[in-house]
């Protein structure tokens, strides 16, 4: 069996499962974010369902609209707090308490290798970074809250073997943009719709943050899960942080894959996804020089501490271009604290960046830090679909944390390899 088949079999009390089967897995936890609590609560209240099946398993996070840019958001926050009380949800990571729901659970040892959980949000695929699975339920999260589970059709698995090491200045996000582009143009011959993309090959070069980055772009290509088999370093992190015992899952040696693909990344250059989607990637040199107005660093794909560190290496001792505004949203409150302890906060602020609370930042419906009509942005957001940051005719580019930081300094899209960190050499590869 593949990793997802083994995980779903274990959580469904089955010896084995096959793609296409319908199972009802028992999740390790159930995550619901601030944007959907109201809908779920009202739906269940209307049905007379006022008790949750397992309130101790429910994790509520406030990450989509953290600082309430509107009266409506404040109302929603108040509603969510009341819902948590009425439902008896103790694991409520409200404003300023946790951060991004697809980041901090991996940092704190809540989400561990081999786990399975239900989430309302499709970016739960980030769980693959630590060797776990989070499945998106959308509005059907209400059924999971009420009954403890929901139906899952076992997805097919596509394997992608990574060969070679990333060059200096090239990042795991670049790999993701390249994969999305090769899938879109057919050079990687696989349909990712409702598939699990399972990585294999030369993966030790990727730390946890880089693994989260590897999960990002396949998700935008409609993968339902991404799985990066945990390395010794990832397992060591998990053991150190674990809040409970866990058993890592790995695919069997003779597992069946719908497609078996390979990608050599040794000659990969930094990538920029052109406006309209992650699958529009080109080498950074093709987009270099495009004047920018707006920069965002953060999101589920690039929100871990190592991502902030990467960007800070370029920004240290420099200032962003005068016409650029730059927003930074750490993935967790813990990262914000660590930034303060280790000097990164000062680096970003002195460079002229604006710090946002831990969470999704502009990447959620542009509730904060949006762009205006006709403006140009480069960011590490989950995607750059038109309208992602507000104005539908804004030009949204994506790059790695290194490319985004180098661009903020230059005032235009810039190749990070041409922007030597002033203090010490940039780390290559994974972070």
């Amino acid at each position, binding site marked *: 069996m593949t990793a997802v088949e083994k995980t779903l079999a274990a959580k469904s009390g089955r010896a084995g499962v096959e793609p296409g*089967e319908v*199972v009802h897995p028992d999740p390790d936890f159930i995550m619901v974010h601030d944007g959907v609590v109201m809908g779920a609560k009202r739906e269940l209240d209307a049905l007379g*369902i006022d008790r949750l099946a397992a309130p101790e398993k429910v994790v509520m996070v406030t990450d989509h609209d953290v600082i309430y840019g509107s009266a409506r958001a404040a109302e929603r926050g108040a509603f969510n707090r009341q819902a948590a009380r009425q439902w008896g949800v103790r694991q409520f990571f409200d404003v300023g308490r946790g951060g991004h729901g697809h980041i901090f659970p991996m940092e704190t040892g809540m989400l561990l290798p081999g786990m399975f959980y239900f989430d309302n949000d499709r970016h739960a695929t980030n769980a693959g970074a630590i060797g776990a699975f989070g499945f998106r339920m959308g509005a059907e999260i*209400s*059924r999971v809250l*009420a009954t403890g589970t929901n139906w899952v059709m076992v997805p097919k698995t596509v394997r992608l073997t990574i060969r070679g090491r990333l060059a200096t200045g090239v990042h795991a996000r670049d790999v993701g943009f390249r994969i999305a582009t090769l899938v879109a143009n057919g050079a990687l011959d696989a349909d990712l719709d409702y598939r699990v993309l399972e990585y294999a090959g030369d993966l030790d070069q990727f730390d946890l943050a880089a693994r989260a980055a590897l999960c990002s772009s396949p998700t935008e290509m*409609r993968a339902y899960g991404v799985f990066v088999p945990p390395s010794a370093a990832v397992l060591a992190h998990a053991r150190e942080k674990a809040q409970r015992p866990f058993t890592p899952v790995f695919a069997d040696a003779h597992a069946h894959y719908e497609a078996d693909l390979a990608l050599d990344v040794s000659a990969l250059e930094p990538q920029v996804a052109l406006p309209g989607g992650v699958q529009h990637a080109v080498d950074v040199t093709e987009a270099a020089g495009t004047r920018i107005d707006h920069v965002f660093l953060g999101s589920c794909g690039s929100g871990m501490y190592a991502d902030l560190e990467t960007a800070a290496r370029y920004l240290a001792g420099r200032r962003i271009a005068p016409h650029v505004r730059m927003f930074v949203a750490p993935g967790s409150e813990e990262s914000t604290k660590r930034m303060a302890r280790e000097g990164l906060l000062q680096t970003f602020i002195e460079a002229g960046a604006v710090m946002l609370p831990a969470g999704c930042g502009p990447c959620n419906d542009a509730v904060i830090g949006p762009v205006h009509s006709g403006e140009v942005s480069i960011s590490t957001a989950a995607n750059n679909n038109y309208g992602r940051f507000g104005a539908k005719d804004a030009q949204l580019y994506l790059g790695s944390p290194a490319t985004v930081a180098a661009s903020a300094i230059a005032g235009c899209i810039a190749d990070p390899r041409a922007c030597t960190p002033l203090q010490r050499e940039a780390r290559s590869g994974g972070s």
Partner: protein
Amino acid sequence: MSAFQWRLTGRCYKLGHDVPHQGGVIPGWVIAGRYLEPKDVIPHLFEETDPGFHERCRPGDIIVAGRNFGMGPKMNGYVAMNALGFGLVCESMPFLAYRAAVGCGLRVMTDCVNATDICETGDALEVDFRDGWFVNHTRGIRREYPPVPDGLLELIELGGNTGWLKQWRTSQQRTTAAHPDPEA
């Protein structure tokens, strides 16, 4: 439950490949406005591609769509199809669209290879969604297709997510009444 009609007899309404939910099935403003009541969505089904469709259709009609039908995870169009008593047969469907259709209680079969090659709008069709067969009486063609998975039969029979939850709630109340909580 036994009254549920898994076999539909009706007219074919054929669509091409890559028909998106937004615009192709139902206007974007209906989706953005989160209209999900049958009375609100029915008048707008296929409105942008076939105005007046809802007045010409009949219960039991079967939508036969090509590849990649219904892109998007929203339910509005399937609510309308289900309320009108339709079934949906398509060559392929993004999974989240399929999940949305099932969640509305719609009878749906996907992965029906080349289904659009063997029928035209107006043909007399008979489709059994539980047993997985498709007959075009007009052309004398029969095909076996993947049926609704066993694990989803109950969900569709109960009318989708809301109906399923209502039934679940009722069964919970019965259980509680039969075995009252001793600590209550």
